């Protein structure tokens, strides 16, 4: 596919390759109107367009006029790409917080964990996902499933916050 950009630029800026489309240009464009010829390579990125304004029924204007931007899932879900990691859950301990087995969590390590955040944490060098609770006794981890125990730190145990969970990716239609 060849895309031809037409602008009012002078002869000196025209690339030599333009000579090849001379016959086409003579049909209506002056040679000096062509700024550059670009090869358009189709890509596989899927973009989901959305309308900026609602279109009332029966309004004759074509929908394209309102489409300005495409949805980018990365931009929507990930605020800090450099510090973001994705992990998979293999535990039911957070079921009532909507986190099931095989769900994927988006974890942002750059965030400071605060009371009530769901975090990926390390206790004795083991990973766990729980709700971080901070009260007068200090920090503890709350399970969101009555069948699982909360984690209170024992003497000499250290709680390391690995990252703060910002999002759950849940595949609804199991394949």
């Amino acid at each position, binding site marked *: 596919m060849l895309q031809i950009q037409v602008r009012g630029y002078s002869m000196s800026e025209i690339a030599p390759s333009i000579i090849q489309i001379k016959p086409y240009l003579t049909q209506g464009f002056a040679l000096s109107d062509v700024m550059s010829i670009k090869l358009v390579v189709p890509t*596989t990125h899927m973009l989901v367009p959305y309308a900026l304004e609602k279109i009332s029924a029966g309004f004759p204007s074509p929908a394209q006029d309102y489409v300005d931007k495409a949805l980018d899932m990365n931009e929507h879900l990930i605020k*800090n790409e*450099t*510090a973001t*990691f*994705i*992990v*998979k*859950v*293999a*535990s039911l*301990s957070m079921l009532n917080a909507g986190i099931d087995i095989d769900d*994927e*969590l988006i974890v942002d*390590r*750059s965030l400071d964990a605060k009371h009530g955040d769901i975090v*990926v944490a*390390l206790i004795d*060098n*083991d*990973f*766990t*996902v729980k709700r971080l609770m901070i009260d007068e006794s200090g920090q503890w981890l709350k399970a969101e499933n009555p069948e699982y125990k909360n984690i209170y730190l024992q003497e000499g145990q250290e709680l390391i916050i*690995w990252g703060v969970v910002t999002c759950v990716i849940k595949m609804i239609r199991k394949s």
Partner: protein
Amino acid sequence: MKHENKVFFLIDVNNMYVSCERVFDPSLNNKPVIVLSNNDGCAVARSNESKSLNIKMGVPLFQIKDIVQKHNVVVLSSNYVMYAEMSRRFHKILGSYVTAEEVEPYSIDECFVDFTAYEKNFDLEKVGQEMRQQIWKWLGLPVCVGIGRSKTESKIANHIAKKNPGFNSVCDLVSMDPCNKEYYFSLIDVSEVWGVGRKHAKKLQSMGINTVLDLACAEPREMQKKFSIVMARTIYELQGISCIEIEHTPPSKKQIVASRSFGGRVTELADLKEAISMYAQDACKRLRDEKLLCGCMIAFVQSNPFDPNVPFYNESITGSFSEPTDCAIDFVKAATRMLNDIYKEGIKYKKCGVVLTGLEPKSGHTYDLLTDFEHIEKKECLMEAMDGIHNKFGKTKIGVGPCFIPNRNWSMSRDRLSRNPFRWEELLTIKN
């Protein structure tokens, strides 16, 4: 160009490969860990615990079997794809401190930052601590930061920060008292200086120059006569006069090497041909990425150099192309043909590979009068189609010959490979 008031940071990840593994497998913390080279041959990264067991860099695994068993050393294959992604993020964080012109990713785990323009507005040591803490929090990687008036000095500062826990991983030579600086310089062996190789170190020692301080006190012009301009520059740099600038674009490549050792021993010519055709295609991919043409190719085969029972077999052959090329088919054809000449029956081969030399930029090449342009254009179309398929479906989906079919006799063994947490199929799993 000499400058007296520059400020360079060198930020370096401690035991990079082991540290990366620990981010995703914290059970490795506080344990002796080593990471092996391709094919699980030699130790290429060691945790501090392994270093104190006296496991040396580059030692083959079979030579340290006893230590590994006795001390339960965790042995891992190298997971280069994962390390590369962590490295990208490491360099990206450092890039956020300055402009793109002021940062130089020096290697997978080292980065120079030219901070000259901001010196007056900041406490340098504080900035170093900030970098260290940010990389630790965001990525879980421990780093050391060296700060100096030249790149060479920042390297030494980094070394001081690593060896002396009192510095809390950041050593700022710019604001250090000169007496203290001399003291630390006098403790470090001259072979640790950036750019001083083992060979030069020997010659320096024979002249009575044993420590960094000795070298820093040497007379640059005299040393230039005895060594080269490079040595004089190193001395200026140690004196705090910057002679080596940040490099933005790495100098264009002189050669491309693609080789790997085999998982098992290979004896058959057909297997060797399959293997070398893959390395030829790997090399071709890198050549095309750099937009270069290759005029000359070397093919080589080797037996195991560590096997004391048989003599080491190491043969190579050079061939040149009638017209510089960047077409995978040319490389595979040439490599397999050259192999016929260096193959000897009865050898247990451990390694083979190709070296592309005689490289030149594709854009600058002048074709001679008799060039068959139609043929070149056809090949280019084919290669573009192949590149397109590789970009879309991965580089093993199409190739020349059967080399990308898995589990060939010569395939690499990486038995202890950790998962790659940056692939959907291999995400880090939280079990509790």
